[in-house]
């Protein structure tokens, strides 16, 4: 095998210009794919963390059926105190869980004593909410202070604050209908104005969990959902499966599962954008495959054509067809390896350069988001293996042709 590699290497060096041009082509393809993966991956993970860290959390637990009717914010599908305790118990047992926050979600009328409008609200425990969605604090564009909010205070979404002309320190009234249909009102002080973000819950207001209970006249400690934050997003699938397994044994009277565990992917339409990015990455990879395949095939077809007489000679002196096949496959493999190695090095340097340049971009209402391109080792390995495999596959047809060549015909070739 060492001799085959030696001969293949020398043949590549023999046609130096062609080898360099083909390697450059493969290198450009590898660089394009790895840079795209790193930049789109950075954009994707940034957007995911924006959504999960400022509103949704990594996963949420509801009572079965709540999510399907979430638009109407139903109070009759809340988790009851016993159910809440069971979920909390399950969550506390998992070391992967960093924090979790029970929420009461409700719709209410928002009045500034002159005008009234609708508002969607989250009743939260401020400390637990801040630990579960740490970027929520950063969304407060006016009225920042100690803690998220206190009892009797409200964080008003930016659009409502502007439309209703309320500012920090103003008094407002919330009126809500409870589960029995009776109406209750309660006065609040505007603690802060909250920046709106894309996605579900991005334009909701926040009040204290106890205020939500008193506004809705809830006697028991019941909640609409529990948002959960993990130490690492990489643990999401495992934790979700574990929670589903732990909580799955709890059944309702219809023998249906009592709880539903949803990852962020099920809770936001941004997941579709993330999937589109993945799809685009796939198409870019397919283009890379095409570039490598065409360039390697072209080079190897030329290599076989130019060396017909040599092939005839080595076949005549007894070289087996399998060895001749390997000689040409090895050339393709080495070309792929060369292009891939240079491509990976150039890509890593470019990614490091882009990270050092601290490039920023705007996404919707969010300005100056910092691009932090990075690439996982698994992506480098995957792309490299694809390119090298395609280089070998691209060499296969010319190599087979060489190995099956009739020695006499080949020796007569001029």
């Amino acid at each position: 095998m060492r001799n085959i590699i030696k001969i293949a290497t020398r043949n590549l060096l023999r046609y130096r210009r062609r080898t360099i041009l083909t390697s450059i082509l493969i290198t450009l393809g590898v660089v394009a794919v790895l840079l795209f993966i790193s930049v789109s991956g950075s954009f994707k993970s940034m957007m995911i963390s924006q959504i999960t860290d400022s509103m949704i959390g990594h996963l949420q637990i509801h009572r079965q059926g709540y999510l399907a009717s979430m638009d109407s914010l139903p109070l009759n599908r809340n988790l009851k105190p016993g159910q809440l305790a069971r979920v909390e118990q399950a969550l506390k047992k998992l070391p992967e869980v960093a924090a979790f926050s029970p929420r009461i979600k409700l719709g209410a009328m928002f009045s500034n004593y002159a005008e009234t409008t609708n508002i969607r609200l989250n009743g939260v425990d401020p400390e637990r909410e801040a630990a579960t969605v740490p970027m929520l604090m950063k969304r407060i564009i006016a009225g920042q202070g100690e803690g998220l909010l206190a009892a009797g205070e409200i964080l008003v979404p930016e659009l409502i604050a502007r439309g209703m002309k309320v500012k920090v320190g103003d008094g407002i009234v919330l009126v809500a209908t409870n589960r029995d249909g009776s109406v209750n009102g309660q006065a609040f002080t505007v603690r802060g104005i909250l920046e709106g973000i894309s996605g579900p819950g991005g334009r909701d207001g926040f009040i204290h969990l106890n205020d939500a209970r008193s506004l809705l006249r809830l006697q028991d400690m019941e909640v609409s959902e529990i948002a959960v934050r993990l130490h690492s997003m990489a643990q999401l699938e495992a934790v979700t499966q574990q929670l589903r397994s732990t909580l799955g044994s709890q059944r309702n009277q219809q023998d249906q599962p009592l709880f539903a565990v949803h990852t962020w992917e099920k809770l936001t339409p941004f997941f579709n954008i993330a999937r589109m990015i993945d799809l685009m990455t796939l198409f870019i990879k397919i283009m890379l495959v095409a570039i490598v395949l065409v360039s390697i095939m072209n080079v190897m077809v030329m290599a076989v054509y130019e060396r017909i007489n040599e092939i005839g000679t080595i076949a005549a002196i007894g070289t087996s067809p399998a060895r001749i096949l390997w000689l040409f496959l090895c050339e393709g493999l080495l070309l792929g390896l060369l292009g891939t190695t240079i491509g990976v090095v150039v890509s890593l340097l470019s990614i490091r350069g882009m990270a050092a340049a601290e490039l920023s971009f705007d996404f919707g209402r969010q300005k100056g988001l910092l691009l932090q391109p990075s690439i996982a080792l698994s992506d480098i390995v995957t792309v490299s293996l694809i390119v090298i495999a395609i280089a070998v596959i691209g060499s296969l047809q010319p190599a087979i042709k060489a190995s099956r060549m009739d020695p006499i015909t080949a020796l007569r070739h001029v």
Partner: protein
Amino acid sequence: MTLVTARQLNKTYLSGEIPVHAIVDADFTIASASFVSFVGPSGSGKSTLLNMIGCLDPPSSGSLEVAGQDLTTLGSREAARFRGKQIGFIFQDFNLIPVLTVFENIEYPLQMVQNWPRAERRQQVEALLAAVDMADQAGKFPHQISGGQKQRVAIARALVSRPQLVLADEPTANLDRETALKIITLMKSMRDDSGTSFIFSTHDPKIVDNAETIYTLEDGRVKTAHREAKDA
């Protein structure tokens, strides 16, 4: 001892739709350690006959036995194996592998065809390099040596795996007279040393003069002319 036996050997191929009888009812034998020349005008069938003896081209009919092996029964893989073991080739254009050095070109059949151990390969190649007087050129590539030197390397490569038979197709055609004579002398002395038979197809009177047995070909028919070889 007989090395090659041909009986009623025929080779017919199609040129378009027209059958061409390249070899017709050839009958001959070649002994071990002989120096044999097939002569004849262009198109008389010399190369076709050498290709059949060299197991590169199967006969259309008849029988052909080389080193005790019936060549008509071999598939392409077996034929490659047989060539690698029993037959050496010397070509008109030398056909050295341009990316290999002189040493590596000679070593090639032992390494890539017969898988000899490294130490034995080195010993055998060095012996052949010395025999063809190319030991001081071992590290050079083919483009760095002359035509005569290339043919010496080709002879060494043909003999390195100790074949019973070396086939040489116009081996002196691209060499000047003096070099050609040296090459013929070398091949003859190699035959004497190794006992390997040399079979040529040639126009070259220098080879014909040195051949111990001459077969003349006319329109694919083999005619024998025995003669005593003179010293080259």
